[in-house]
């Protein structure tokens, strides 16, 4: 059994590439292979042309790759600010001075709209806020490629909207993103290109409009019924 088979793609600089697919399609596995959590039995991962296959997650962060987790993993016993501060200290820029790191962490919190909760324990945040903290931590490592794993999953409508605002802001700042999502509206509105996975294989690839009208995709992922009437798939 292979969780992923012959999945090959490029993520051009300053592009937002979305990955969709039914449950078990291999989206999260793909993430784990790219970010060094799993070592692939075959295939290569290259970052800016350099082979980074099988590198440890911390080494990849230093080379400019950061990720968020589908199931949030905040450091619950630390403050929101400290959570982000770790990322500033140990991320790609490796800021040494505490004051500078805190300042940078504060800026990042402001970007995601959590600056007013900086000194609360991370455990005191709601799920929506914890998801934004997850994004803030990844952003604070100053990544060249940011991988987002279902950051809208489990959020309320209002929370999803504010997360999408954040995504557009990140996009405007010129980041390169790889984005896995179940929430169709979110992914269709921010991505430049979308890849569809099914049973660990690439099913389709193209612009959001093309994907929405792709017969095979509609059948595999959305079912026979029209996509527009059931946006939450």
């Amino acid at each position, binding site marked *: 059994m292979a969780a992923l088979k012959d999945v090959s793609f490029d993520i051009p600089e300053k592009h937002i590439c979305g990955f969709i697919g039914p449950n078990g399609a291999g989206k999260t596995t793909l993430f784990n292979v790219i*970010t060094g*959590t799993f070592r692939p039995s075959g295939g290569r991962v290259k970052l800016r042309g350099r082979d980074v296959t099988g590198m*440890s*997650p*911390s*080494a990849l*962060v*230093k080379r400019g790759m*950061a*990720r968020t*987790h589908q199931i949030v*993993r*905040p*450091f*619950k*016993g*630390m403050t929101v600010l*400290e959570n982000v*501060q*770790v*990322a500033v*200290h*140990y*991320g*790609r820029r*490796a800021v*040494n001075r*505490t004051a500078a*790191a805190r300042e940078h962490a504060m800026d990042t919190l402001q970007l995601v709209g959590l600056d007013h909760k900086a000194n609360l324990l991370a455990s005191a945040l709601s799920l929506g806020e914890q998801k934004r903290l997850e994004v803030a*931590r*990844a952003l*604070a*490592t100053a990544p060249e490629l940011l991988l987002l794993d279902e950051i809208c999953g489990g959020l309320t409508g209002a929370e999803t909207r504010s997360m999408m605002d954040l995504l557009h802001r990140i996009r405007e700042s010129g980041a390169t993103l790889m984005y896995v999502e179940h929430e169709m509206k979110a992914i269709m509105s921010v991505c430049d290109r979308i890849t569809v996975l099914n049973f660990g294989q690439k099913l389709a690839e193209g612009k959001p409009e093309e994907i929405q009208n792709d017969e095979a995709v509609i059948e595999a992922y959305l079912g026979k019924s029209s996509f527009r009437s059931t946006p939450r798939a």
Partner: protein
Amino acid sequence: MLLFGLLLLLPLTNPSANTVRLLLTTAVWIITSIGWNLLGGLTGQVSFGFAVFYGLGAYATALMINAGRSPYFAFLGGIAVAVLASFLVGLPTFRLRGPYFAIATIGVGEATRVIMNNLDITGGASGYRIVEHTPFRQLEHYYSAVIIAAIALAISALVFHSKFGLALRAIKQDQEAAADLGVNPYLSKLWVHAIAAGLTGVAGGLYARYHAFIYPGDVFAFQTSIYILLMPVIGGIGTVWGPVLGGVIFGMVEEELTVHFQNTHLLLYGLLLILIILFEPDGLVGLLRRLSKKLKSRRSREDSGSNDPEQILRRRGGVEGR
């Protein structure tokens, strides 16, 4: 600072030799307690094998003193050997997680004791005597222990408030998440283990020099490992002052307990450990924090009268009875 000053001035009051000895022993315990807390408290890696570093520090110091080195140089040797040993222990065991790491450290500790019991150059199980060719001055021993304890506390505070300390706290909470932010958990654990082992090693050296006789059944005993982890737990795991507080209390009562409850004192420690873990996992520091919070909230309630509905209810006697 104040505490440290008092301890330095103490000999002016002409204390008995026994009081000085007790304080010295306490200072030595405090050093090990501070060391263990960096790995076990701050980083969350519970080790049952710190007697290894204590014993190796003691033996290395003893061997160097007998080879004619100055005792202070010998302390450095004790630190070096303990740090080296920490890498040997850490390299394989830090691949393990949580309880498996803890179990592995028990194995390492017992193996070391057995080896030392059979090592001929140190007299094996019958022990090793240290011969210094200078007159014995108890206060010199005392001062060196107190000063090293103060240095240990300073190092610990530095680590706690540094970038490194923040990473260690992150590792304690979620190792994978820390790695995803660029922290290298394996290396970080190796380094903090080395610092902790160095401190424990110098404590062993101080102990060896003062007693002038050491044997594996004492310095390498599993019991010693337990003592070393018990103190920070009593005082407050993962806090700067917890291990000091725990060390003071343990240092003061340990001998009395051993004398009066010769057969059951280990049982008492076990009970104490269970009680602390059940009711106040943050130890004495946690207890003190809770008390001061309670006092503060009571004072503010008396001062201004609070709008917190629960407190208003309580004042009316509505919640109190539950």
